[in-house]
């Protein structure tokens, strides 16, 4: 789509674009190209000499047990967060869509965790499950289950998944509600007249009509679990115990700032960039978006 009427200026459009382009080049494109460049170099231990090593940093990563472990942790983490956040949001949205009275109140009470910062959400859940003083850990102890996520890697993973999913439910809920509002009442009434009960109507009509929303949300949730949960992991477990919750983004941070291994950290950055680009392409190609150029 193009405008018929445009302004005939030569210089002005560049002036208008300058701030955005300047910020993009200085803070996005330049650092990304640096990451790309450094991923091909290796520094010696004192940072005195750098040599070109080609793809050696990448090869080393894929030989590194810790890195492969972080890949597996990330896969489990993002699959669990997406599954939990999507399924509970879908149930709540279907219920909220059914409600005639009080629907607005329910909606308001369910959307606000979106506003809570991931790091703060992490601290809240950390407090609930704190092995010595947390109220939920205490309740679990009463029923005979020992909770200590500082020692038990599976429990630590469960805790970061819970905190991350808790925060994402409201986002999914809003989109499912919007999707449900788009399902025609006439179709549902016709099915009801034909004798389909609520469960049958959901399986045969509502769910298939929601599948574009579902697909879109799956991609968004994976992106969220990959890149926006750093604060949760950092605040709740710090990647531990014994790297049990070390997701890829956390590892880049740790290797780059704590381990100071620039080449390897840069190689990890490049791999993550490839993942983001892949997910963005999927989102734009296969999910209905309004952006065309």
């Amino acid at each position: 789509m193009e405008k018929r009427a445009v302004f005939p200026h030569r210089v002005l459009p560049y002036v208008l674009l300058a701030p955005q382009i300047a910020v993009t080049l200085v803070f996005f494109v330049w650092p990304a190209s640096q990451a790309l460049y450094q991923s091909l170099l290796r520094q010696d231990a004192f940072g005195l000499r750098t040599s070109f090593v080609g793809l050696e940093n990448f090869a080393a990563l894929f030989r590194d047990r810790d890195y492969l472990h972080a890949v597996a942790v990330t896969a489990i983490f993002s699959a669990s967060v997406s599954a939990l956040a999507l399924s509970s949001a879908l149930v709540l949205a279907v219920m909220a869509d059914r409600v005639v009275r009080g629907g607005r109140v329910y909606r308001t009470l369910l959307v606000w965790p979106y506003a809570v910062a991931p790091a703060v959400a992490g601290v809240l859940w950390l407090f609930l499950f704190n092995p010595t003083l947390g109220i939920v850990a205490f309740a679990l102890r009463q029923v005979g289950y020992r909770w200590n996520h500082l020692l038990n890697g599976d429990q630590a993973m469960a805790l970061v998944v819970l905190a991350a999913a808790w925060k994402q439910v409201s986002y999914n809920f809003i989109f499912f509600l919007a999707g449900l509002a788009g399902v025609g009442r006439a179709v549902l009434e016709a099915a009801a007249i034909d004798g389909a009960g609520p469960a049958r109507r959901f399986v045969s009509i509502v769910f298939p009509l929601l599948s574009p929303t579902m697909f879109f949300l799956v991609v968004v949730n994976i992106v969220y679990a990959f890149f926006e949960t750093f604060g949760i992991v950092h605040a709740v477990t710090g990647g531990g115990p014994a790297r049990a919750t070390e997701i890829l983004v956390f590892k880049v941070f740790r290797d780059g700032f704590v381990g100071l291994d620039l080449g390897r950290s840069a190689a990890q950055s490049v791999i993550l960039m490839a993942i983001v680009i892949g997910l963005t392409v999927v989102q734009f190609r296969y999910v209905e978006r309004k952006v065309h150029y």
Partner: protein
Amino acid sequence: MVERQSGLTLLTHAVLLAGIAVVAFPIYVTFVASTHTLDDVVRAPMPLLPGHLLVENYRAVLTDGLRSAGGAPVGRMLVNSLVMAVVIAAGKIAISLLSAFAIVYFRFPFRAAAFWTIFLTLMLPVEVRIVPTYKVIADLGMLNSYAGLTVPLIASATATFLFRQFFLTVPDELLEAARIDGAGPLRFFASILVPVSRTSIAALFVILFIYGWNQYLWPLLVTTDEAMYTIVVAIHRMVAVAEAQVEWQGVMATAMLAMVPPIVVVIVMQRWFVKGLVETEK
């Protein structure tokens, strides 16, 4: 609802109430813990009804901070967070309005190149290029400054796309009429285009305010001076104190203070919030 089934309706309300309980429980416990003494909070099980120290605990963290975490007052951090959130939201909106205006209303060489450069920002989140971006900020001397906290996050492909979409739906007749009345491009932009975009601007502001307020990794890297901490970053430092009892009642009061502003924005501006969320993802 197509038919009436009172059993099903009951189940519906029960599920929704259970959902709300799970959503609200962590916040409720946080609030309760922020109104008790440390001794009450750390003795399991902690009380589940609010205590009497609401005013004292909040006043203590706002003005004196937590002794175990260096004692930086939380009031200052709230100001930092507010500055960061407002500058990021307003900055993103301002530079995106300008670039969308340029892309839609002008024809010039490299227009497509400019568009794709902006599009790139979508593919390069901070998380994937932490170290080199940090180096740029350090080289520019922007560590521990509001500029360092905000400017690098101000580029926005999403906002630019949103405004571009919106501008494309603005009737050409408006521009023609403005031209006949002798308005130049900047006059048209300021007097017509920005005013007709105000609902999109409001919707975007809500989303971007929350985005800015909730930033974590970036302020964690850029600020080392506690006078520049944002509240979201400070909470983690309060919990991660070494060799000292975590002052949970103060941490929880700080957590409440960190949550309340964005939650109020979402609830008060709910209509724009939902609109903004749904539109920025299209």
